[in-house]
């Protein structure tokens, strides 16, 4: 009898232990993660210059790209990994571009934290940036990669605190993340030392601040939504994001920069109006006397967007950069270097039209500077042939009167491109 009961108990115990035993090999740390979601795309993209450029290849972009992303989560946090494998015929190199690698958590009702490699954006401009001092990829933008690539990733920690009075975002980047600026490899540019355009013959060599925790960046945004008018104050301390100075030996530098700014955005009439301003304090040369370092500046932006007809959106912006120590700059400028105007004005116009059940998107974005007398046109056509397959074609057209102004310097880089992408 006892033996029977014991046998029975052992059997029950065994039965109970079976799932435990069976589960044990799988009961690893990975069980706390949700099933990872894998997505991505495969893309082939090619483009050519429409002018002869003595300093660059004829092809402006020629690449195949495989993007893979994996995301998962636990009870406490979300995780994401996203990277691009790239075969680039312009540089004749393979490359891996880690776009995102982060952990996100909501530790309290009033706090979000995101740590790792991430894309960061704020501010109100449309393809114009004042208080967004997160890295941009100007090369990708000008050679005709997808507009998504205008934003380069930051290696940063972002803490967001949400309150009744206001919300605050604090982004700490322990090691300066510069723009992916024009180096001469993909794009020819105006070279002051040579007094002409240059490219593969004169790569931009930089002296980049790269000491961890010393050459760091802090960006802060304080924002509040009042009746759906979005108001924000910004602060930044770090460095000019693209080269904005030179050493005596001709190396490009990223001088210290502090930025203080504000923005507002909301409905006005039947459209959306936005205004933004920022004070760029060039901290390494506040007097403006050093010709090798960018002057301090005020930057202003106003914009308005409206749906003017069914599926047709129009947007206009007006943007001003104003040098604050222009006299000192002029006095110190070597006579061989063409001088800037004190103010640079840029107007932008956007027209976006959706057709064929929104599967065809035609867009035209124009930058025009009345002070520099130059312009930059970005026509694009995007057609979604199926849910997975899309075609894109477009152009980047630069022109202007003087070869040294901001857009005109890129004139020989004017290009047309086309791409096919399979998303999954």
């Amino acid at each position: 009898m006892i033996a029977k009961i014991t046998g029975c108990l052992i059997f029950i115990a065994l039965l109970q232990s079976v799932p435990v035993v069976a589960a044990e090999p799988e009961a690893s740390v990975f069980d706390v993660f949700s099933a990872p979601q894998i997505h991505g795309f495969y893309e082939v993209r090619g483009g050519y210059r429409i002018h002869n450029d003595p300093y660059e290849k004829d092809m402006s972009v020629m690449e195949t790209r495989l993007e893979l992303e994996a995301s998962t989560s636990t009870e406490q946090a979300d995780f994401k990994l996203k990277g691009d494998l790239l075969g680039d015929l312009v540089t004749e190199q393979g490359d891996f571009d880690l776009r995102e690698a982060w952990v996100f958590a909501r530790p309290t009702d009033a706090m979000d934290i995101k740590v790792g490699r991430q894309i960061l954006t704020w501010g109100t401009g449309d393809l114009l940036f004042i208080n967004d001092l997160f890295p941009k990829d100007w090369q990708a933008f000008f050679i005709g990669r997808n507009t998504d690539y205008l934003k380069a990733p930051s290696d940063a920690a972002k803490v967001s605190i949400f309150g009744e009075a206001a919300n605050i975002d604090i982004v700490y980047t322990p090691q300066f993340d510069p723009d992916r600026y024009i180096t001469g490899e993909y794009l020819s540019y105006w070279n002051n030392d040579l007094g002409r355009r240059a490219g593969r013959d004169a790569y931009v060599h930089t002296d980049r601040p790269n000491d961890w925790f010393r050459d760091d960046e802090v960006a802060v945004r304080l924002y509040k939504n009042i009746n759906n008018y979005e108001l924000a104050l910004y602060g930044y301390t770090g460095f000019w994001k693209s080269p904005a100075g030179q050493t005596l030996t001709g190396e490009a530098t990223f001088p210290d920069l502090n930025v203080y700014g504000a923005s507002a955005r909301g409905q006005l009439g039947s459209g959306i109006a936005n205004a933004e301003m920022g004070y760029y304090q060039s901290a390494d040369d506040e007097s403006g006397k050093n010709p090798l370092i960018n002057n301090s500046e005020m930057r202003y932006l106003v914009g308005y967007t409206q749906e003017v007809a069914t599926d047709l959106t129009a947007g206009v912006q007006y943007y001003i950069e104003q040098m604050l120590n222009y006299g000192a700059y002029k006095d110190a400028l070597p006579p061989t270097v063409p001088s800037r105007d004190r103010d640079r004005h840029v107007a932008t116009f956007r027209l976006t039209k959706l057709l064929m059940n929104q599967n065809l998107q035609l867009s035209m974005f124009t930058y025009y500077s009345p002070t520099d007398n130059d312009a930059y046109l970005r026509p694009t056509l995007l057609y979604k042939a199926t849910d997975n397959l899309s075609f894109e074609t477009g152009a980047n057209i630069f022109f202007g009167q003087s070869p040294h102004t901001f857009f005109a310097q890129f004139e020989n880089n004017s290009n047309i491109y086309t791409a096919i992408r399979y998303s999954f």
Partner: protein
Amino acid sequence: MKCLMTAIAAIGLLLAAEAAALDPNSRTLTVDEIVNKANQVAYYQGKDGKSKVQMTITDKQGRTRNREFFILRKNAEVVGDQKYFVYFQAPADVRRMVFMVHKHADEGQDDDRWLYLPNLDLVRRIAAGDKRTSFVGSDFLYEDVSGRGLAEDTHELLRMTDDSYVIKNVPKKPDTMDFAYYLVYVDKTTFMPTKMEYYEKDDKPYRVIESQKIEMINATEDGKEVQYPTATRSTVKDLKNGSATEMVFSEVQYNLGLSDDLFTERYLKRPPREAMR
């Protein structure tokens, strides 16, 4: 005799009951009441709601495109106003894009709309435009999804069928509309609009929306168990260009207790976890 009396009494009672049942239908309910109730049932049920939506768009050649998204909705304090999120799951190129709307029922006050583009981490403010434009490239219009202001049309009870009120709605500003009028079939018991037919000037129907499946969804309202009639399968047919779109709603939940704080930039950038499950 007694038996007969009982039978007569019973018939009398039945008739009285039937008359009572008919009464609210035929006499006390005005067309405005019907329209209000139908609007409430179609767009405002519960305090808030959540649903997964699978959308299939079929063009006249039979080619299909699919969309998959979660909708999160909350009725705002101002009567008629609502806030909602659309979290896209598919197709791959719009995955993780989020659309947020603060809908204002007041005539003349535009909705506030935002779109979040995750690849750029960009919160774009969208100019509220024509509400009669396609919703995510489908045959449904923004207005079909978020509701049309009742004050924008005049309403007339055209006739009653066995199970429906048939309401004719004529826009007050006909010049700006793509239709001359539309008929709404409202179910007499649930007040669910089951069919909407849009007509052009020549009385030709050119667009038909139908609720093909209505389910009673269990929910708790102020501590009580209730059931909300819910259209879980809707189709729209464009009779002119031969395309059609079907929306199938699943995982429908009401009265989750969503707070107003949810419908802000914070959750636009990163959806609340409970909403995605």
